[in-house]
């Protein structure tokens, strides 16, 4: 029971947070607060708390701020999970924290167009990621169409904590280009299309992960994972959102096809159904199916002296062939009911409280439970 105290407290935090902050903002600003608890069949757990704010500074200028904190606990090393954490003190649970900040400005530049610039920084004891993002968005054809273009550069430092506690860093760079198109098809239907291209260069292995290799004499030895230093990744996605006014519900279906230069191909399909079950209370039901092929250098068993040299090898579960299923349930309560009840609470007109549960499992005998609570205010 003591192990549940922290996640339960954090999941209740949005309610406490709301009562202390809802009077802090005024005007057309938006803010949100989210807590997230994750646990899986490998006894890993993550607790995340997140706060975001969009504040209008001038008529066409918006300030964006997002702060996120993670607490990650990895169990003692076992035969199954021993690759995902430092080897020192491997008989004890490993706990680490991560902090993330995004700061941005969104500026209206001409009729129906905005330009946004964001900087992103994420830090944990053995991983640092810094990023700059530029986004251009233009409404077209009487605002029936929205075109969005985004460019992003990430500079990451992948760290390895050595036995003596020192950290050795290796460099990874990511260049991302994204295009998106949203199109109104009718008063109740919207189509979204997107395309992503990502070039990744540098160190792309896990510095802690070991691969079993059988050498020329038939002896199995462990050696560091070694992934290629360049990877191009592409994805195209389509989503259609359909409102069904007669039953006060919506259906949202999406599909994504992904492929990369390591020969990983994947298909992702998702279907979501949202319905008002009573006034101001929305039930959401979600199903997601995912399947992927293996990277060209993935093998169940590496045999040969070359795998102790420069030949690529991996123990990464993300590069194996597998399929997964994800079921989700959510309840969203719109606080507009409170706004209707009292003029003093009119500022809650576009605010909501949401609770979500996801159950994920795949055919690699992995499963996870995810609980998320969030508060969104539009003040």
């Amino acid at each position: 029971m003591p192990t549940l105290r922290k996640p339960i407290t954090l999941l209740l935090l949005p309610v406490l947070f709301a009562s202390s902050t809802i009077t802090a903002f005024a005007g057309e600003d938006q803010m949100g607060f989210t807590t997230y608890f994750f646990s899986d069949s490998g006894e890993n757990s993550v607790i995340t708390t997140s706060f975001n704010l969009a504040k209008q500074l001038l008529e066409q200028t918006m300030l964006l701020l997002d702060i996120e904190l993670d607490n990650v606990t990895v169990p003692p090393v076992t035969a199954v999970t021993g690759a995902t954490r430092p080897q020192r003190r491997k008989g004890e649970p490993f706990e680490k924290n991560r902090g993330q900040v995004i700061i941005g400005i969104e500026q209206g530049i001409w009729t129906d167009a905005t330009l946004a610039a964001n900087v992103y920084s994420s830090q944990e004891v053995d991983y640092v990621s810094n990023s700059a993002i530029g986004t251009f968005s233009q409404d077209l054809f009487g605002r029936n169409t929205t075109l969005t273009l985004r460019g992003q550069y990430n500079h990451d430092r992948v760290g390895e904590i050595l036995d003596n506690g020192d950290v050795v860093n290796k460099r990874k760079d990511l260049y991302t280009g994204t295009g998106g198109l949203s199109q109104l098809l009718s008063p109740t239907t919207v189509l979204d299309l997107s395309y992503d291209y990502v070039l990744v260069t540098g160190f792309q292995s896990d510095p802690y992960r070991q691969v079993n290799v059988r050498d020329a004499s038939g002896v199995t030895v462990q050696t560091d994972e070694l992934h290629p230093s360049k990877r191009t990744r592409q994805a195209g996605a389509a989503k259609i959102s359909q409102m069904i006014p007669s039953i006060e519900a919506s259906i949202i279906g999406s599909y994504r096809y992904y492929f990369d230069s390591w020969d990983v191909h994947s298909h992702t399909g998702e279907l979501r159904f949202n319905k008002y079950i009573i006034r101001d209370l929305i039930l959401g039901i979600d199903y997601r199916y995912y399947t992927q092929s293996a990277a060209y250098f993935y093998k169940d068993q590496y045999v040969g002296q070359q795998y102790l040299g420069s030949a690529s090898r991996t123990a990464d579960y993300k590069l194996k062939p597998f399929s997964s299923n994800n079921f989700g349930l959510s309840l969203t309560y719109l606080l507009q009911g409170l706004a209707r009840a009292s003029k003093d609470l009119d500022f809650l007109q576009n605010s909501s409280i949401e609770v979500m549960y996801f159950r994920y499992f795949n055919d690699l005998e992995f499963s996870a439970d995810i609980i998320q609570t969030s508060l969104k205010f539009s003040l």
Partner: protein
Amino acid sequence: MTKAFVGLLLLACSVTLSSLNCANVKASEREKLADPIMERQNQFAKQTLSQKFFLSREGSIGGAMGIGGGCGCAK
């Protein structure tokens, strides 16, 4: 497979471009599209926490217009 992907992309673009001429939804007709059950409110361009989880377990990215890098997810 890449050719199939390009084909699908072109088909999707064709459908969208052809719809530009026939779909003209007036501002006064868009009330239903703004309903919370349509999930169109995505002002903050960051990946959601559930998307972050998928990134940590699966070998694919993209399709969500998100910002990322470093996930605190036991890599």
